[in-house]
């Protein structure tokens, strides 16, 4: 098997697999996919086959899950994936304008990645941060009450970190 994951991811996989009894490993499929994606940024066929083997399910059953959840992705995205919510609460608080600002300032469309591979953007549905609308999420970090100006600052910070 040419698929090699870091020891950390392997350990996370093992821990989640151990959490389910024999014959019920299917429940581990989603966490395993996310853990691997955290490391590799992309879900490959090889990865899905490996998960199918370890979770004792058919390959097709992993494919079903990946096709269903938009946060599991078969295309690579930027090192920093910026998700802007335009669902109702955020939209009312300026989420739509924020999304347009994101597209224009970064010259990117939905699910597109900058040439240097650093930043990608995505228009997403509710992230459960309605009380702090409009909200964005950069990888796993939330930013609340984001204005276009604050957005530019966040992007500058990202670029600074590289």
């Amino acid at each position, binding site marked *: 098997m040419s698929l090699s994951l870091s020891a950390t991811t392997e350990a996370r996989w093992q821990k989640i697999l151990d959490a389910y009894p024999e014959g019920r490993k299917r429940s581990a499929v989603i966490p395993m996919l996310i853990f691997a994606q955290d490391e590799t940024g992309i879900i490959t066929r090889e990865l899905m086959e490996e998960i199918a083997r370890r979770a004792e399910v058919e390959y*097709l059953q992993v*494919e*079903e899950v990946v096709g269903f959840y938009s946060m599991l992705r078969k295309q690579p995205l930027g090192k920093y994936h910026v998700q802007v919510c335009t669902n109702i609460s955020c939209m009312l608080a300026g989420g739509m304008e924020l999304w347009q600002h994101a597209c224009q300032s970064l010259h990117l469309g939905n699910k597109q990645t900058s040439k240097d591979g650093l930043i990608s953007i995505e228009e997403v549905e509710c992230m459960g941060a309605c009380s702090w609308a409009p909200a964005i999420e950069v990888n796993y970090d939330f930013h609340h009450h984001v204005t276009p100006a604050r957005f530019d600052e966040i992007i500058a910070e990202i670029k600074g970190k590289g």
Partner: protein
Amino acid sequence: MATTTAPPSVINAKLNGQDIQTKPGTLLINLTKELGIEVPAFCYYEGFSLQAACRMCLVQVNNSPKLLPGCTTIVTEGMVIETESPLVVEARKSMLEFLLVNHPLDCPVCDKGGECELQDMVFKYGAGESRFVDIKHHEPERPFSPVVYYDPARCILCYRCVRVCDEGYGVNALGVVNRGVLSEIAPNLGDQLNCDECGACIDICPVGALTSHTYRYKTRPWEMKHVGTTCAHCSNGCKTTLGVRNDEIMRANNRDASGLNEEFLCIKGRFGFDFNHHAERLQSPLMRVDGELQPVSWSKALAAVASKFNAVKSAGGKFGVVGSNHTSNEENYYLQKFARQGLGTNHLDHARTGDVVTLVDALSGKNGKLAVMADLYQTKAALVIGSDLAQQHPLLAYELRRNFRHHQARVYAMTPGPVREDSYAVAKARVPFGEELAALESWREALAKEPELLILFGDSIKGDAVRRLVDFGESLGIPVKYVALVDYANSRGAIDMGLVPELLPGYAASGQPGMTLPEMLADPKLDVLWVVGADPLAGAKLAGKPFVVVQDLFLTATAAAADVVFPAASAYEKKGTVTNVTGELQRLNAAVKTMGTKPDLEILGLLGKEMGLDLGIWIADAVLEEIRRNVRGYNVTMPILASGGAALTSPVNGRVNVASRPELIRSAGDTLFTSGTLTKYSQVLNSVPERPGQLYKPV
């Protein structure tokens, strides 16, 4: 001490204003069904897991603001249920409107048109108008395999196909990929299937999303007549309903769940009927003239054979008669009578595929020891020895799996290689053929703890091994039933009807010597070899130069070597009965006719008449009457049979005073994708990529 209240034994509820009572744990949708009130459903399918995907079954419960799906709601005490309130009626209409949003409405060309559940529901519950004015999302139809085609636009995502494949057949080859409007069914190899090719997903699909290659775009359902008969292939004896148009079989299924197999069929039963229309079907008698087989008239061929038979008979010559695993009981009975009374020979045999004889003998004096098909679904524990059931006995495998799913049956699998039962068996062992009895000892303790046991064994257990297996079973101290696995549609009937030298019909010893099949072939002095529906020369040679007469559908190796060949009608072209692996008698019904052929029974009758013999009339029903009167165990109840059911035969319950000749018993080892000599003539069986599947070859 804590007091416990006994669970209620009855639940009181109100349904559409009526007070009703039901058992605790009853699903709302089943309650309404019992009471004759229709709650429409797509995804709910009895026997499979609950899905609650389609929302067709929404009903109103206790004025709850949200409607509940009847297919997953359990009726509880005091529940007030409305199935026809304005809200429910409106909801049904809306659900249908949703389903039709992207549905192509190509009913005029769709295979399912006329028997489509979506059509019926829209007809009954409305949604005659759509508020959706945008362009429908459309994806083109595509083949999943040479058998299964998928049209995503028609799919309503009820998951029935996914569940029947996974839960029913244990194959798990279908899934649902993507999300929302893009969701569709996908096969396990990305764009192709690797599966049993059984077609169950096609039949269970409520709409025309899954269609079969053999049937699609060929006919309208109402243009066919439907004939219920018994599958021509393996010994499991599935009832199949043939859809016939213009003397051609268009399809086979069992959607009315009327047989012992309910809706089950494997690829052979559902699609393997195509051998019947193969271009190489014999349609005229053939006679060897100047060394070449040439078409001749029936009268000429019958006269030639009759005069030859009479000449050999009066000269005291030697006949060898070979019967079939496929011909009906009536034909087998008549053939043995012809041989014994008409020709005065006891050189009579067929290819034996399982040791039923020793089993019947070993169980003498014990009642109710031979299992029937229903036992597969009901037994609490089962032991499978030396057979890959999913490949060789598809219905038995299906019933056992269903038993496990519904009643947690405990299955023990002892086979030479991996089998599908492994995935749910409580114990599995890889044991080479012939070593099973010794290996069984290690399971003795576990098996003895079961409340009851069903033992199924293949052809590796024969002769004395059968007796030792029965000894083992009977020493467990629990009720045990047995099934001796045999190969073909009427393998069981061939032995029951005495197509062997040592036995008369009904397991009575013949008391006469007689040559077995290999002995006939090896006898240089044989004068006549008469083969009815078998192909003994496929892998063997004749020692002598007998006059060879063959009755068959095709020019088999044996027929090609014959002096006279009679074109026989197939199982789908005649009346009669066959006996399945579990001893259940079922009817064959004539669905079609191939020009120029005659049923074997008629050929036997005409030949007897031509010879001047008096063997009785050759009408299937009359011969069945004779069998019912003369063959022990076959005095079955006629109404069951007449109504298309399976009537249980019960072989003699006393010693069978003959040696069973285990050295002659050998299963052909057919898989899901082969069916003896018929394999070659089924285009479908030859087209699927899974062929030839796994196959155990007994050594």
